[in-house]
């Protein structure tokens, strides 16, 4: 796990941070998080999980109810936002509508009393970085959403802050532009050696862009790690369900032997699975299987027969929605080709390594319900 970052590497440290707006509900529960110098850290989580609150505390717009935030080793509790030197890109861009694009970008320089000639140079360079040289004289209202977004980016970067915060900066853009901007932002991050804390609730965005992802759930970080770890080794059913796609099935643990466990599903089907964390025999569990881990085959650690309800063609792959005996639905992702047709019965197989068993609790039940209601 990459949490072994040394003291000096951490640009930002959240130590036991808690935040409540109203005095009885916690927007952020107990946040302990280090942001390393030069890394691209994404806060990922569903709506209302406390991502913006975390960002706002870091930027200085909100004060933690408890705990401490350290910036470059110094507590920032008493530091007002305008002295933190943190660049921020807002979800609605927050460009100043009464100023031209160039004036917007020059704003952080002029409040720092940078000499006019130098400021002009830097504004030019910043606009060139986001490829908007020709738009300096326009008003923000005369730009498209993507262009406004890039102005906001240039404005947050022009004063060369060590840390840049972005709160769902691509939320308002269409899919194509969003993917394009993801790459642009990532490139800027690498070129300028920035430290970026990025907020999104789009898991694919988090996976594409980040060095590390902190998954938020109900005001807590439930897992922190590089994208591939989160994807292949989720620590909770919530992470398993939130990152990528997963088939989640409730069951009960029968036996545990070393790195393997046998699980009995509700209808009695027995599965070989890999337990995650402490799973004791007799405990209620949730089993997670990735759609791409299921093959159309007769042999494997786990084999079951299923009725193919529908086949969805998606170009590079096709997706089978299958009904299994216990009334549950399995989504299967297979390469395109004449594999299966709707209405026929197929044998599905997957290995025990790809079949994760999590101990179930109240919150997993909620996750399962969400999953099934969706």
């Amino acid at each position, binding site marked *: 796990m990459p949490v072994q970052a040394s003291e000096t590497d951490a640009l930002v440290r959240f130590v036991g941070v808690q935040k409540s707006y109203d005095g009885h509900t916690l927007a952020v529960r107990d946040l302990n998080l280090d942001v390393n110098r030069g890394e691209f850290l994404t806060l990922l989580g569903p709506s209302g999980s406390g991502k913006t609150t975390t960002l706002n505390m870091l930027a200085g717009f909100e004060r933690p109810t408890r705990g401490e935030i350290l910036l470059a080793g110094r507590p920032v509790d008493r530091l007002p936002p*305008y002295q933190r030197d943190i660049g921020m890109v807002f979800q609605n861009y927050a460009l100043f509508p009464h100023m031209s694009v160039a004036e917007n970008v020059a704003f952080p320089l002029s*409040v720092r009393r940078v000499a006019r000639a130098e400021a002009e140079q830097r504004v030019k360079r910043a606009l060139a970085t986001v490829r908007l040289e020709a738009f300096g004289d326009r008003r923000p209202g005369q730009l498209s959403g993507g262009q406004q977004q890039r102005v906001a980016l240039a404005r947050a970067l022009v*004063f060369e802050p060590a840390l840049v915060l972005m709160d769902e900066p691509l939320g308002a853009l269409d899919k194509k532009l969003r993917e394009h901007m993801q790459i642009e932002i990532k490139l800027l991050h690498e070129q300028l050696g920035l430290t970026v804390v990025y907020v999104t609730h789009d898991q694919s965005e988090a996976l594409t862009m980040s060095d590390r992802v902190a998954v938020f759930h109900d005001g807590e970080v439930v897992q922190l790690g590089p994208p591939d770890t989160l994807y292949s080794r989720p620590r909770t059913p919530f992470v398993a369900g939130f990152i990528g796609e997963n088939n989640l099935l409730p069951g009960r643990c029968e036996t545990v032997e070393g790195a393997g466990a046998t699980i009995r599903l509700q209808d009695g089907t027995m599965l070989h699975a890999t337990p995650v964390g402490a799973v004791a025999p007799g405990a209620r569990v949730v089993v997670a299987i990735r759609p791409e881990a299921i093959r159309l085959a007769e042999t494997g650690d786990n084999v079951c027969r299923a009725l193919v309800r529908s086949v969805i063609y998606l170009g590079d792959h096709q997706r089978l929605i299958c009904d299994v005996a216990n009334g549950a639905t399995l989504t299967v992702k297979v390469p395109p080709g004449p594999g299966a047709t709707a209405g026929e019965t197929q044998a599905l197989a997957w290995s025990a390594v790809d079949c994760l068993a999590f101990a179930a609790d109240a919150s997993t039940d909620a996750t399962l319900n969400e999953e099934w209601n969706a």
Partner: protein
Amino acid sequence: MGRSVALPGAASVAPVTDPTLAAAVHRAARGQRLTALLLVGPLLLLLLFSFCFPIASLLGRAIYDPTMADSLPRTAAALQAAPDGVPPDPVFAALAEDLLAAKQDNSLYAVAKTLNSLLPAARSHVLRAGRFLQPGQPATRESMTGADPFWGEPDTWFAIRHGVQRFTTTYLLAAIDLRWLPDGGIGQVPEGEAIYRAVFVRTFLVAAAVTIATLILGFPLAWMLANLPNRLSGRLIMLVLLPFWTSILVRTAAWTVLLQKYGLLNDLLLWLHVSSDRFDLMYTRTGMIIAMTHIQLPFTLLPIYSAMRTLQPSQMRAAYSLGARPFTAFRRVYLPQVMPGVAAGALLTFILCLGYFITPALVGGPADQLISNFISNYINVELNWQMAAALSFILLALTLALYGLFTKLLGVDRLKLV
């Protein structure tokens, strides 16, 4: 960055040089204009008949007065040929005939009144002439001046000459303390009679004072309201709007109770030991400005409030995060964006104050009467609609000029009323 992804926006700056396209755009815009016209059509008609026509016809009275021309047609004709000054006998004969005819059809009083507005105290002389002139006895200069020396004065005939013109600028000039001189030039009215310029200046000064007072009180209040949680600010806005639900007359009457020498305000000041003496607030400029400020506060406040309310909180946060200190952020980000609301509120209050009438009448003293009080006096007491129209005309012209100047300085599209 060396990537080959085409950026959107780069293509959109290419100019279009297709004339048929311009024509199509024009056609489409015309269709939209027509629809817009249809939508506002009924309102336009209503405005035309209930607003534009009445106002135009009232203002028309400032320059068009046919009373004397209609009642004294023979005199008017005879005067054409007469030299300046007191005219020869035929004009007197024509005048006598006209006055007798006017007496016959009961229009003599109207003539007397009209002449009176051109020449103070002329009324009684005209009515007296109606009594001493006898039908069938041709009047001469001698007979008439003998009966009443008034008819031998050059001023009298100067006024009659002006009075028989249907179109006249006399009233408009009078409204700005000017008059026609006998030699055909324009001059100041005599010292003691000049009042209107001073009244116009007073009106504008009071309006400015009230506007500034409402801004000083309203801006911080609007800021507070705009930054409160929705539910609370909604209730407080109700309090601000409450005065709107009582008539301006009632509110002004309430102020007369408060401002009296032995009224609540003086009691309070004494009780708080702010002063040991009672202030004269009733019938003073100060009291009047206090009452007007109270009445106008919502008009100034609401546009400011709405401008502040629509400003997104992230604007100020962005300014802070970019390194602006609170005052800088306020000056460079907040103020410019709420300025249209401030300007709209100030303009609204200023223009409404120019027309104030009840409050100066009830709370102000004799030296605090504004132009509307004079207009109302001409309409209700003196029955001199010409003078009322002339004063209204000047007021309207000044107001429009001011509005024009204001919007030119600020840009009318930037005014944000609500």
